């Protein structure tokens, strides 16, 4: 019987440079072609396509348009739009399609040209329109940073932590990015640099907020029986999970515990692993607070313990659990799927100066909305 276990057999990303007039489709195509090259495949080997969505080029049917743009005729086609958690869902849906035989080689793509298409300020406004309830939240004037700041202030209050805990996350991200030649921000920063950056929405300063940038990232998910002839060692999908408790932050049952907990538990159970088994982690870092919350929710430490963990350098380069070794959304680039790309490179031993020893396992956790939708992906070198 054919071995339908899912593996990631190719990854690619588009140039991170902002070029006016460059469409999301072009970013998507660049990333897709890079992933095909990486896997040693041609576009005609692809029989499935799953995409996210673009804010800058808001095609209602982005997946179909991209298939047409690339000249791919997939027999499995899907588009997922649940905010920033979508990156892992591309892989989990592709894995399911591979497992049940709907496709054998699925191209997964997430690209956006929000910076080129709209610029920083308009992007901030447009994303706030999407993240806040149009009748019961948006008229009160929250920026997206404000929505996360509500979580951050409650976190600091409940756990009696100072803003240093948030700043330390930004400092760690930049220390990782300093080792990546393509990171948008590479100059190391200190806690004082974070505190000296303009206050956006207290307690979040500008350096607590992710970059607003264009991006394109792609991965190819392949059935095990097809992966053997690919150019790269397969990286195995060991576990996936999801969790959702709300869409709008005023409706969240708690400001310190979210759908991340259930998502992580599902993924760990499927993988047969525990947090202690993870060598390197990729946590969605649109704002510094999310890293603190996710470390706790995923069981890497107990409630309220993330501030001390980050302060001790655990997530920094050389730490026990390096987090976001490319620099993440805070310093590398926007685009949550880039977390998956970097995890694959780490597990292949291709991360250059930022390689984490012989990493065997990686966890990627992405979230969308305002800690609303969650997805966890556990990847390994061994099945």
């Amino acid at each position, binding site marked *: 019987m054919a071995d339908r276990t899912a593996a990631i057999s190719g990854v690619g990303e588009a140039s991170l440079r902002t070029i006016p007039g460059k469409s999301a489709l072009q970013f998507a195509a660049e990333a897709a072609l890079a992933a095909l090259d990486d896997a040693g495949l041609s576009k005609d080997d692809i029989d499935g396509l799953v995409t996210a969505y673009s804010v800058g080029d808001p095609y209602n049917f982005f997946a179909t348009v991209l298939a047409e743009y690339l000249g791919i005729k997939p027999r499995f086609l899907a588009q997922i739009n649940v905010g920033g958690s979508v990156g892992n869902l591309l892989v989990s849906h592709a894995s399911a399609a591979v497992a049940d035989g709907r496709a054998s080689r699925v191209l997964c793509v997430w690209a956006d040209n929000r910076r080129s298409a709209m610029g920083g300020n308009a992007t901030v406004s447009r994303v706030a329109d999407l993240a806040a309830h149009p009748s019961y939240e948006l008229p009160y004037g929250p920026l997206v940073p404000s929505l996360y700041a*509500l979580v951050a202030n409650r976190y600091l209050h409940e756990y009696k932590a100072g803003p240093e805990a948030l700043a330390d996350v930004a400092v760690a991200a930049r220390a990782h990015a300093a080792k990546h030649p393509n990171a948008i921000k590479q100059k190391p920063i200190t806690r004082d640099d974070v505190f000296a950056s303009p206050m956006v929405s207290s307690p979040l300063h500008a350096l607590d907020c992710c970059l607003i940038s264009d991006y394109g990232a792609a991965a190819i998910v392949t059935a095990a029986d097809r992966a053997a002839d690919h150019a790269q060692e397969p990286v195995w999908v060991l576990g996936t999970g999801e969790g959702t408790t709300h869409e709008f932050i005023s409706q969240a049952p708690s*400001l310190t515990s979210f759908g991340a907990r259930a998502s992580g538990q599902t993924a760990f159970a499927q993988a047969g692993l525990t947090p202690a088994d993870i060598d390197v982690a990729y946590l969605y870092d649109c704002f510094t607070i999310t890293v603190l919350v996710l470390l706790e929710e995923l069981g890497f430490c107990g409630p309220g313990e993330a501030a001390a963990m980050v302060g001790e350098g655990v997530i920094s380069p050389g730490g026990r659990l390096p987090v976001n070794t490319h620099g993440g959304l805070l310093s590398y680039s926007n685009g949550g799927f880039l977390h998956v790309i970097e995890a694959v490179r780490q597990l292949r031993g291709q991360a250059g100066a930022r390689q984490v020893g012989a990493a065997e396992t990686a966890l990627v956790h992405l979230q969308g909305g305002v800690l609303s939708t969650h997805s966890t992906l556990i990847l390994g070198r061994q099945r």
Partner: protein
Amino acid sequence: MTSPEPVPLRTLDAQPYWDGCLRGELMVQRCTGCGAYQFYPRVRCVTCAGPVEFVAVSGKGTVHSLTVCHRPLTPRFGDGPYVVALVDLDEGPRLMTNIVGCPPESVYIGMKVTVAFQRLTEDVSMPVFGPVPS
């Protein structure tokens, strides 16, 4: 940089709420089955899916979290700063609001607040909160 002022949509499921705001009354739904209060208005109870009715509530609540926003996107907040907060009503439901009538830096988690109404347009007024008068 400013965007157009967002004006709430008066959707059909929430007419008694918006009408109450225009009268200066905070109307929140209560389930006629399980008794749970909820905000924002829906067609049914989110706890038990039972039928709901609108009732006037005290307008008193407690700040659950807040942020002082320094970069207004729309003209209503001038140059800022202004407070965006989550307030827990005494009856239970949590809602997003602005805290007004006091310096932004004086607002704190756990602060007791009471409702006031701000007129946005001829048809729309919204609840905001301020310190309880001493």
